[in-house]
Structures are given as structure tokens and as C-alpha cells.
């Protein structure tokens, strides 16, 4: 038999238990609300020498761009972009021969270095960015002779027609890239029923993202480069977004260009995460220092 005070104690215990339970539920409900802030501090930022350099057999060294990278969230002006000998203590050389700086184009060159086929060239750069002394090297092995497009003027096509670029390979070069740039690009000559786009685009969509549709490229990898047979590349509708004539620059790429083109633009995965590209620089460099043999093709998409 329980006394009245025991009953009271039991009731109090129950009430206290319920109070604790509801306080706990209230607490987790409050915690379960809201919008957490994402604070991207730049602690992982490291200054890097950013290189955009391409060598072409039969031509002197020119248009080597040495730039810097920027922390996320920064505002970037063009004047901050390039590394200069005066501003950044740049010392650049290829195979030990110094490069000169052209202040007009903000690029490095040396007309005395004539690039050959199947030769190895090492770019070495010293520079100071944000007060930090940086150094990087990268080596490219230029392709052999042999690459050429068979038919350089393909004529006119309607949208949806099959367009094929046939070419002879450079022996040992397995990767070929094709740059498509229309001579005229605007919302007025845009191919709105292009099946490369899943959603219906408006003229303002096109205008706001014009460069995204204007500058296109395609690749073909692991070509049988020692075969004497012609190789081919089929132009997809993702490469041609305008009713226009097109200039297609075809590149027989070295391994550095291949690694850069296949991995640097694709570092973000479907789920938003990032992974590293294949890096062809030693030390503090990013970007590309590659070589290629080029040729040019033309065609037009007409209504």
C-alpha cells in the first residue's frame, strides 16, 4: 500500500520526466531549424604561378602568359592578373634560355628559340607573388611531324547533318583536340533547337551566356597514331550553336595538353565535390605548358 506522499512523489517524478522530455524536444527542434552559414575562409589558398604556354614546332617561342591565381571571393582586375618582371621579379626561361617580356601583350617570348618536332622543352619560372618567392618547372615533348587535316574546307551543312573531319596523325600522338569558334555569334543566329541543350533557351539566356556557346571544343583520345589509315572526328551538335561559318583549329596535342584538357576543366564532380587534375608542373605552378601541331578547317552551318 502506498502512502499519499508516495503517490505525490511519483506524480512529481512523472511531471519532471515529462518536463525534461519536452525541454529536450524543444531544444532539438530549435537546433533542427535554421540555415547554417558557410564560411569559406581562404586558409587553404596558396599563391601559384599560373602558366598558359603553348609551343608549336617550326615557330619561335611566343605568347607565354605567366599569371597568378586568386583566393576565392576576391574581386579580380585584369591589371592584377599578369606577372611582370618588374612587379613580380619574374625570371622565365626555356631550356635555360631566358624569355623576354612584351609589356604590350603582357606575354613572354624569345624569337631565338625555334621549336622543333619531337624535342623536349623545359619551362622554368621564378616569381614573387604576395611576397612569396615561387618556382616551377614543366617539360613538354613536342609531337612528331605528320599531323594534317585531309580536307580543309568542308563546305556548307544544314543543322543535324553529319560533319566529319578526317586527318592524318602524328606518330605517337594519341590525343587530338578541335576548337570551334563561329565567325558570327549572337542570339539572332543561335540554333534554338540544338539537341545539345535539354531546356528551351530564350534570347536573353543566350545573350547572358554567349561565350559559353561561342567557344566550344571536342576531343578524340587514344587514336591509333601509328596506323597509316585516316582518322576521323565527328562534329557533334554541342560544338555548333550558331548558323554561321566556323573556323576550326585542330591540334595534335602532347601529353601535357592532353592531361590539361581532359582533367583541368573537369575538377568538379556531379555531387559538387572537387578532385585534383593531373598536374604537369613541379613546384608552385598550375595551368598548362604544352605543345601541339596545328591545322585549320572551315565549314558553315546554314539555315
Amino acid at each position: 500500500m502506498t502512502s499519499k506522499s508516495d503517490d505525490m512523489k511519483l506524480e512529481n517524478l512523472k511531471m519532471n520526466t515529462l518536463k525534461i522530455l519536452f525541454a529536450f524536444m524543444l531544444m532539438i527542434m530549435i537546433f533542427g531549424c535554421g540555415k547554417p552559414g558557410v564560411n569559406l575562409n581562404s586558409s587553404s589558398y596558396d599563391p601559384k604561378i599560373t602558366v598558359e604556354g603553348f609551343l608549336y614546332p617550326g615557330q619561335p617561342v611566343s605568347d607565354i602568359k605567366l599569371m597568378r591565381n586568386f583566393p576565392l571571393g576576391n574581386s579580380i582586375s585584369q591589371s592584377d592578373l599578369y606577372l611582370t618582371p618588374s612587379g613580380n621579379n619574374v625570371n622565365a626561361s626555356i631550356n635555360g634560355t631566358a624569355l623576354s617580356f612584351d609589356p604590350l601583350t603582357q606575354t613572354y617570348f624569345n624569337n631565338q628559340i625555334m621549336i622543333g618536332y619531337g624535342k623536349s622543352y623545359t619551362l622554368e619560372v621564378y616569381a614573387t607573388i604576395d611576397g612569396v618567392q615561387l618556382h616551377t618547372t614543366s617539360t613538354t615533348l613536342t609531337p612528331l611531324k605528320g599531323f594534317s587535316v585531309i580536307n580543309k574546307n568542308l563546305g556548307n551543312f544544314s543543322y543535324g547533318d553529319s560533319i566529319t573531319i578526317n586527318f592524318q596523325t602524328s606518330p605517337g600522338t594519341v590525343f587530338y583536340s578541335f576548337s570551334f569558334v563561329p565567325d558570327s555569334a549572337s542570339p539572332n543566329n543561335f540554333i534554338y533547337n540544338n539537341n545539345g541543350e535539354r531546356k528551351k533557351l530564350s534570347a536573353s539566356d543566350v545573350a547572358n551566356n554567349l561565350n559559353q556557346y561561342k567557344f566550344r571544343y571536342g576531343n578524340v583520345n587514344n587514336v591509333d597514331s601509328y596506323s597509316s589509315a585516316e582518322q576521323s572526328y565527328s562534329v557533334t551538335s554541342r560544338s555548333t550553336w550558331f548558323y554561321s561559318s566556323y573556323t576550326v583549329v585542330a591540334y595534335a596535342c602532347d601529353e601535357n595538353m592532353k592531361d590539361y584538357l581532359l582533367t583541368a576543366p573537369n575538377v568538379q564532380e556531379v555531387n559538387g565535390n572537387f578532385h585534383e587534375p593531373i598536374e604537369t608542373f613541379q613546384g608552385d605552378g598550375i595551368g598548362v605548358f604544352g605543345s601541339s601541331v596545328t591545322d585549320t578547317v572551315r565549314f558553315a552551318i546554314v539555315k
Partner: protein
Amino acid sequence: MIKNFAAILFAAMLMSTAYAQTNSSFTISGFTYDKKTGETLIGASISLFGKGIKTGAYSNNSGYFVITNIPPGKYTINVSYVGYDSYKNIITIGEKSSGLLKFYLTQSAYKAGEILVLGDSINVSERAFERQVSSLNMTQQQVNAIPKVVVPDLLRALQSMPGITALSDFSSAVYVRGGTPDQNLYLIDGAEIYDPEHAFGIFSTFNTDAIKKVEVYKGGFGPQYDDRLSSVIDVIDDEGNRNNMQGVFDLSLIAANLTLQIPLGSLGSISGSIRRTFIDQTIAKWDTLIPPYYFYDGNVKAFLQLGDKDNLTLSYFKSGDNLNFTTDQSNPQSPSIYINWGNTLGSLNWKHLFSDKLFSSTYLTYSGFSSAFNMRESASISESNPLNDYTAKEALTYYYSNELTLDAGAEYKKVDLSYNNSSSSGVVDISGNTHETSAYINAEWQPDPLWQIQGGFRFEQFLSDTTYMHLDPRLSVKYKLTLNSSIKFAAGIYHQYMTAVERPFAPDIWAPTDKNIYDSQVSQFILGYEQQIGNIFDFETEVYYKNYKNIYIYNYNVGADISPSYYDGNTPVYTSSKDVFIRGNEKAYGLELLLRKDVGAVTGWIGYTLSGAKDIFDGVNQGKSFVPQQERTSVINFVLNGNVNSIFSGRWNEQPEESSSSWILGLNFIYTSGQPITLPSSTYFVNTLPAWDNYNATGQKLPSYKLYPGNIDSYRLPAYIRLDLSITWKKNFGTWSIAPYFQVFNIGNRKNVWFINYTSNEQNGAIVQSVSTVNQLPFLPSLGVTVKF
């Protein structure tokens, strides 16, 4: 050295138990059943008292038990099981064999307990001591009681347990103690299921209404389980009511689900279930922008009693997902996508008693997984990935004495698999088959009531284009500190010969161990402590350490690394898995705390996990170690299920009163540390091709703008927090009941971050970068109804 030690230990076991046996001792054995349905009861406790003897046993997965070394005389036998009235009687053990005993237990009379695990007469500490290290059991009722994302989901329910985490709201895949989903062994009635995912991973394929019992081993599992490094999720489906037809019909916002159990007289029973989504037949018919996607799964299981000593179980399971979508039906050239994948399982299980001490279970299983993918956009891609697993396995259990049980088994597994992909960039044609032969022995020895030792070995020989052989030791030791507390230890070496390419929003691709992909290995060490509090709460804590070797992640740069095996004309053909994966090692460690209440009107648990993991993969993160994406430093789980009247009256430990209707509350809260992700460390401008020398300030998105990744997984997203709630009203009408339910996923509508987006725009002649977040599932209410008959 290990072999010598094992031999000495084994001899000691036999000697000690042989000493305990006498010529005049007897053995009793039999089965335990649910009186209402006739189904066997797994894990029932059978105790024998009298003549100064107190002994007992637990029924195995077939409901079978054996008690040996009983001197003749009169004894009290007590049979008990969670949620059932105990059976107690006097039996005489004498000269005449008692034959196979059959005990039929009646479910406790409390009617409101559909979602509750009712109190029983077995001491909680006894059950806790019997439980394997790092194991947990869940019943169909417990799985269904946890608030869900629209439909009940076994794997999502498991994500509420310590040590088991999810990567995001969009995935039901489970990551166990630092492992990845392909390191989990999923079994349905003994057959392995390779890709238990629906809807690109949002839901799992396990139909919870068909489940009889789920056993989960987060580590330290015995030598009878093979070929996976991290965990075992062993699902046993309902055999079916042997006395009366019964069924469950469940209707949610996206799917309908019917489960039936039909008796076959003295022959046995048959059960089956079918579930299908109906979005494609409803909303997708009216709104052409919604893809006509559907998934289904179903199973049929026949249990045939072929006599007292034989039974046969035939089980079949099939699941499928289908998406066939053309963006513009009027334009046959418009982009289209076709994805189809699914699992087909079949198993035949013959259980036989060679004698009352020798129990045999023979399996023949088939597991098929296939996926097909066709996409027509600007270019066409088609892909298929069939996998066929044929397995035969035999498991023998010999009840040598009450102190010593021996398990031995052998298994042969043949897997045929291929991956074919055809696109303008070439053809991938990887095919082959693997053969795995294995055998194991395991001894469970109880030298005195305070100790329980299990030890054994598993021998494996794996053949593909190369051969691997291993002898893996496994050990588990339990010691009772007091009547209500015990410590447990387990250690073992495990190997795995398959790895999967995990792909977001696409089926996984399995690849076997071969010359390019080495056999994966993990060494596990687990130390645990259990304490029962007031015979109501079960507190357990475990620390673990795992050392993985040769584990693999997908190589995202495979396109640049891979070389063709040969050319078919001008088309490169790839026939090797070389360069598809990156090899690495991992060290994972953690502390788990769990306070669980399985008895009474209100049940649930509170769990806390503190864990860490370090990966190091060849060439990744500049060769430095990094934290894997599945690591969550701290996790808090809180799950509560209960009868509302009982909650508000404070009668948590009592059974709710019998009533014709009741309200049932379910609550699920989870807090985890943020997910490690890789952020870009900086931006840079390099034209993709030299012809695009177009850096300018025209306000256009610049193709030269690029992001450069920082250190791998060095940034953590904000903490993930979510609270789910469900409320069910159940009305009983005698032989049938109806239970409409309402549930809310993420009731606080917390904007848990999924990933971060980066954009750049030109403003006043400069490029301005900005970030935005893409969030996980928002406040998501749903409702449905369950009818049981």
C-alpha cells in the same frame, strides 16, 4: 604460431567439455514457434532448472535449440521470448528419449503494441551478453516505427544507429565505421544482393513489410561471413503464417505495397510482397516534364516442412528501376535517356537435422544484378553491366556440449560479370568470371558462465586472372563482470575481392580483384562494455580500430590515364580495369555510446559516436593523408517511439492498456559534424585552347575562368541536423486494423548544405566571385495508410 595456439586452445575446449559429460547424461532438442502464426522464433531462451542444475540455450535462426549433458530427473523448463508469454512446465528426463520438443509461445495479450517491443521474462542482461560484439537486431516493427522519407526504409533506419552514417539525404547507402557501401555484405535469405538501391540511391530495395528479422554486424563478425570488409546486413524475410492467411497493405504518396502470408496446411506456408511506385501512372501522365520513372520490388518465399528433421525454403526476390524519358516527344531527335537496373535473387535453403546435435543448412543461391544505360544527346552513349553470382554453401553446427558448439562450413562462389560501354570515344568491354572457394571453422566455448569465447579461421582462395589465398583468423571474447555488466572483445582479419565504382545518380559498377586491383584487407579490433540498468535500459559502449589496406576509389582522371588494349578498325577498345581505380589505405577508429530501451510502452535509444579516419591514396592530395568524405567526427542519434497515452501518463515501462484505438508517436533526431569536402583553393584564368585568347571584360562568362582544388576533404560543411516526426493513429477492428499516418522529414526545415556552387561575374571591369549553397531535403511532409488483415 597462431595455428599452434589455436590447436592447443581447441584441445583444451574438448578436454574441458568432455570432462563434463557422463555416460548417464541426456540431451534435449527442439524448436520454438509462434503459436498464432506457426513461424519459428529466433533467439528464444530455453532454460532448465532442477537437481542443482541451471542450464539453457537460445534457439538459432531456424528456431532450433539443443541442451546437452542433463542427468536424468525432473526439471522445470522455461521457454521465453521477447513480447511473448513464457511457457513453463515440468519435464522428466529419463531413459527414454524425449524426441524433438516443440514449444508454441503466445504473444502477450497487450494489443496496443504494434510498434512496441514488449517486455519479456528474459533478463535484459542475459540477452545483452548473448549478443555478438558490434551487432544489433531490428525487427520489422522497429524499422517501420522510425519516421521515414515517404516510405519505410531499412537502410535509412540503420542510419539512426551509432557507427552507421549516410553521405546525404539523397542516399540510403550506409557507411559503417569508416567503410564504404561496397564493403557491406547485404543478404536476403542467404543470397547476396549487390546494389540494394532504388531511385538512384534515395531508397533501398528492402521491403520492410516482408522482413522477419535483420541482423547487423558493424564489425567483428565471425568466419561464416565472407568477402566484405566492413559490415554484414543479414535480412531474413517472413516465412509466412502457417495457420491463417494474413496481409498488410500500405499506401504512401508515391508507392503501394501489398504483403500476403498464406498457410499451406501441414506442408508449410507461402508469403510474398509486391511494391511499386505510381508516379509514372499518375502525375507523370499529366505533367510531361516529370520523367515517367518507376521502381518495383517483390518477393515470394515458400516454407515447406518436410518432416520433423527437414525443411526447405525457396525464396525469390526481384527489384527494378526504370526511367525512359525523351525531352521532346514530338521530336525524335531530342535528347533522351533510358536507365534500367535491378536485382534478381533466388535461394534454396535445406535445413536438416542429422542428429539432435548436428544441424545442417545447405544453400544454393543465385544473385543477378544488371544495369543498362542509353543516352542520346548530341552524341550517343550506351552501357550495360550484368553480374551473375552462383553460390553453393554448406553450414554445419555441432552442439558438442552445453559449453562447446562447433560451426564449420564451405562455400563456392562463381561470379560472371561484364561492363560494356560504347560511345564515340571508344568501346569498353571488360568481362570475366571469378571463382571463390572458402571454408571455415568456428568454435563457441563457454568454459564457465562468466566467459564466452569464439574463435575460428576462414580459408579463402580467389581466382580471376590471378590467384589470392588467405587464412583469416577471427576471435571474440566475452566476460561477465557482474550480473548486469560485461566486457567484450573481438578481432579479426577480413578480405574482399570486389570493389564498386560509386556513381552519383547512376548504378554502381562492380569490378573484381585481378592483376590491377589487389585484394582488399582490413584488421579490426573492438573492445566493448555493456551495462544493464534496472533491467530496462541497456547501455553499451565500444571502441574500435580498423586498419584497411588496398582499398580503392574511382580515378576521376581515368580518361587521361587509360590506354586501349587494341583497336577495332579505328575504334579503341578497352578490356582492362587498369587505371580505373586508385589504390589506398585507411585507418579508422571510434568510440560509440548507446543507451537503448527495448521494453515497455516507450522505446528508443540515444547514441553518440566519436570517430575519425585517415586515408592515404596513391598520388591523391600530393601523397598526404586526408579525411574520407564519409567521416563524421561526432554523431548524436535520438530515436523515440511510443504510445502517446503512455508517454503523457509517464508509464514508459509498463505496457499500454488494451484499447480499440491508439496514437503512436515516432521521433528521429540526428546531429552530425559536417561532411569533409574539397573546396577550390583558388581561381585562375587559362584559356582552354590557344585559339580562345579571349580574356576580356565584356561581362560574359569566361571559358578561361577555372577553379583549382585545395587540399582534399580539408573543409567541413556546417553540421548536419535534422528532426523527423511521425504520428500514427491505429484503429483495431478485431481481425483487421487500419493505421493512417502523417510524417514530416526535417520538421525544422533546416537548410542542411549538400554542396557549394561557385560563380563569377564581371562588375565594374573586375571579375567578382561568389558562392552559394545547394541544400539537402527540405521540410517534407507525407502521409499514408497501413491496413493489416
